C-alpha cells in the first residue's frame, strides 16, 4: 500500500504538490486524473524515490521512501511516461538483468512474462529495434517480473494500439484483484471509469475529488451533468 501524509513538493518557488494526504490500500486500482501540469507525475515520483517531499512523508508498504529507499523500492515497480531501456541489450537480457537485480535467479519468471505479453517473436532482438508498443510491453513485463506489491504507472496507454490497451487494462485489473496496489495516472476518463476502483482528481497540486466511481456519478447526478462536464468544470476553476 501507499500512504502520503501531508506531502508538499515545490520546484523552486512553484508549488507542484500541496499538502497531499492520500492512502491507497492493497488490492486497489487507483486512477489519478488531472489536467496537464496538475502534479500527477510529481506525486508519483515521490512514491518511487525520484523526488523527496519538502514536507510530510511517503510510505510504501510501511517503509518511508526517503529513509529506507532500498526496502521501499524493492516492493514496487514504476512504469514512467518515458521508460528507459538499454538499446544494446536484447529484451531477454533486459528481463534477466531485472530479475537478477531482485535476487531472483532462473529464467522461469522471465519466460512466463514473455509468454503473457506475447513477445516470443522479438524477445531476442536488441531493444533499439522495437516499436513503441513492443517497448511498452517489455517495460510492463519487467515491471511484473518481481511480483511487486505496489505498481506505479504513469500514463500507461499512450501510443498503444487497441489490442495492447485491452491487454494492459486486463493486466492491471488482474494485478489489483490479486492484491497488488495499482497507482495509475491517466488522461482518459473512460479508462478510469472502466477499471478504476477509486478515482482521485488533482488540480493545481491539490486533491479536488477523491472517491469511488459511484460517488463521482452521484455527484454528477446531483449537479445534473455528465462525467466529462463534471471533470471539465472541476479542473477549470483553477485556471
Amino acid at each position, binding site marked *: 500500500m501507499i500512504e502520503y501524509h501531508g506531502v508538499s513538493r515545490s520546484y523552486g518557488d512553484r508549488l507542484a504538490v500541496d499538502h497531499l494526504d492520500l492512502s491507497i490500500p492493497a488490492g486497489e486500482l487507483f486512477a489519478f486524473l488531472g489536467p496537464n501540469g496538475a502534479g500527477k507525475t510529481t506525486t508519483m515520483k515521490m512514491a518511487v524515490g525520484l523526488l523527496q517531499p519538502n514536507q510530510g512523508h511517503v510510505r510504501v508498504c510501511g517503509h518511508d521512501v526517503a529513509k529506507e529507499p532500498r526496502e521501499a523500492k524493492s516492493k514496487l515497480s514504476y512504469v*514512467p511516461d518515458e521508460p528507459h531501456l*538499454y538499446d544494446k*541489450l536484447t529484451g531477454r537480457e533486459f528481463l534477466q*538483468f531485472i530479475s*537478477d537485480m*531482485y535476487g531472483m535467479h532462473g529464467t522461469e519468471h522471465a519466460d512466463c512474462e514473455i509468454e503473457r505479453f506475447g513477445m516470443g517473436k522479438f524477445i531476442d532482438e536488441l531493444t533499439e529495434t522495437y516499436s513503441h508498443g513492443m517497448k511498452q510491453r517489455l517495460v510492463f513485463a519487467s515491471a511484473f517480473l518481481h*511480483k511487486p506489491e505496489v505498481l506505479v504507472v504513469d500514463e500507461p496507454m499512450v501510443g498503444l494500439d487497441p489490442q495492447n490497451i485491452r491487454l494492459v487494462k486486463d493486466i492491471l485489473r488482474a*494485478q489489483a*484483484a490479486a492484491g497488488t496496489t495499482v497507482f495509475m495516472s491517466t488522461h482518459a476518463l473512460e479508462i478510469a471509469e472502466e477499471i478504476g476502483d477509486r478515482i482521485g482528481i488533482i488540480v493545481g497540486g491539490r486533491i479536488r475529488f477523491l472517491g469511488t466511481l459511484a460517488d463521482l456519478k452521484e455527484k454528477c447526478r446531483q449537479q445534473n451533468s455528465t462525467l466529462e462536464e463534471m471533470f471539465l468544470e472541476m479542473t477549470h476553476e483553477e485556471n
Partner: protein
Amino acid sequence: MSPESPIAEPPRLLNLVEEARLYRWLHRSILKTTLRELLATSRLRASLAAFMSMVIWVALFFIMLEGFFFLQKEAGAFTQETVEKVFNIFYASLMIMLFFSSAILLYGGIYQSQEVRFLMTTPTSPERIFQYKFSEAVFLSGWGFILIGSPMLVAYGIVVGANWYYYVLLLPLMIAFAFIPTGLGAIVCLATVHFFAPLRRPIVVVSALTVFGLVAWSVWTVFFSRQNELLTPEWFEETMIRLSTAENRLFPSWWLCSGILEAARSESGRLEYQSWAQAILFFALLASNALFLQMIASLLAGRILFVSYNRLQTAVRHRRTIGFRWLDQWMTKILSSSPTAIRLLLIKDFRLVRRDPLQWAQFLIFFGLVGLYFLNIKSIQDAAPFAGWVNLVSFLNLLVVGLILSTFTTRFIFPMISLEGQKFWILGLLPIERETILRGKFLFASIGTFLPSSLLILLSDSLLQLPGTIVAVHELVCLLLCAGLAAIAVGLGASIPNLRAISPSKIASGFGGTLNLVLSAVYIIFIVGVAAGPCHLDALVGLGHLSEFFSPEKTQTAMLIGILIAVAVGIWTVYFMLRIGFRAFRQMEF
C-alpha cells in the same frame, strides 16, 4: 491470462558483491554487443577511429622522441633535472584536465541521464549506481589520458635506454594515477550539486568561472611571466624555481613522475634493485590513494546521491529567455550586415548549440587539453631553445588541431542537416530558399570553428615565438581547414541525410558520418602538408639546417606554390561540396 499471486517469492535485496557482479555483467553485455555491431556493420568506422588514434599517438611519439634526442645531442640540456621538470608540468596539467573532465562527465552521467533515473527507481544502492557511472568516467577520460600521456614516456624510455620493467610498469602507474583526479572530480561534482543546486545558476556559473580564472592566472604567473631577460642565467634560474611548483610532493602527478623516473633509472652495480623497488613504492602510493579516494567518493554518493539528485531536479529553473540574451543581441549586432534569413538561421543554430552545454563542454575540454599540451611544449623549449624542433612541433600542432576540428564538424555540423530535415516542415514553409538554409549552416560552422582554432594556433605559435610569416601561413591554413571542413560536413550532411535517427550522435556514427570523417582527414592532411610543409622547410633551411639539400630560393618558391595550391584546393572543395549539397537538398523529400 492467469493472475498469479503477487507475493509468491519475496524479492530480496542484493548484497554489495552480488550488485557489483550484476553491473559488471551489464557493462560487459553492452560492450560485447556494441563491439559485435561495430565489427559487423561499420568496420570502416572502427578501423578509422583506430587509425586516427594511431596517427595522433605516433605524431606525439615522434615529437617527443625527436625532442628528447635534440635535447640530448644538441642542446646539452638533457639533465635529470630538466626532464623531471618537464614531466611534472605535463602530468600536473593533465591531472587538472582530468579532474575537470571527469567532474563534467560524471555530472552528465549521473544527473542528466535517463539511465540513472531508471536505476534510481530500482532497489540498487546509491553506492553501486555511483560506482557504475564512475567506472565509465574513468574509462572515458582514461583512454584519452593514456593516448596523450604515453607517447612521451615510451619515447623517454627509448632515449635513456630503460630496463624492461620500465615498460611493464608504465601502464599500471598511469592507470592508478588516472583514478585519482577522477575520484577528486567525482567528489567535487557530488558536493557541488548537493550544496549549490538550490542556488541560481548564474551564481554558480560566475563563481565557477572565477575559480577557474584564478587557477589559470596563478598557473600563468608561476610558469610564464618573467622579469629577467630571456636566456640569461638569471632567467634560467627564475624559470627553474617557478617550474618547481609543479613538483610539490603532495601532487599525485609528482608520485607518478617519480615512479616513472625511478623505473627508468639504470644504475650500474648493486644499487640497481632499488630502482624498481622505488618505482613499485610509488605505484603502491598511487594505487592506495586511488582506492581511498574511490571509497570516499562512493561513501559520499551513498549518503547524498538521492538527495542531491532531488535538489537538482527541483531547483529554481533559470529563465532561459533572459539569461544570455545579451549574447544573442551581440550576435545580432555582429551579423547585422548579413541578409535577414541567414542571420536568423545563424542565431537559431547558435542558440541550440549554446543550450547544449554537455556537448560543447567536451570540446572545450579537448581544446583545453591541447592548449595545456602547447604550454608544456613551451616549457621544454624554455629548457632547451632549439628552433628546428619548435618548427616541427608547430607544424604537428596544426595537424592535431585540424583532426580535432574534423571530429567536431562530424559530431555537430554533419547531423544538423538531418535534424533540420526531420523538422523540415518548419523551415520548408518559411519563405526562404532552401539554399539559404545550407549557406547559413556553412557560415555557422566555419565561423564557429575558426574562432577557437585560430586562437589556439595563435597561442601555440606565440608561445613558441615563431616568426610572423609562419604565423600568417598557419592562420591561413586554419581558415582553409575550417571552411573546407564546414563545407564537407554541410555538403555530405545534405547528400546522405539520416531522417530517422533522433540523436545527433547516432547520425554522426552512421555511414555518412564516417565518410565525412574520412574525407575530412584526407583534406586536412593534404592542406596542412601542401601549405605548411614547404614553409617549415623554408624556416629550417633559413636556420642553416638541411642546406646541403635545399637552397633558400627553392624553398621559397615551393612555399609560394604550396600555398597557392592549398588555397585553390580549399576554394574548390568549398564550392564543390556546397554544390553537391545544394543539389541534394533541393531534391530532398521530407
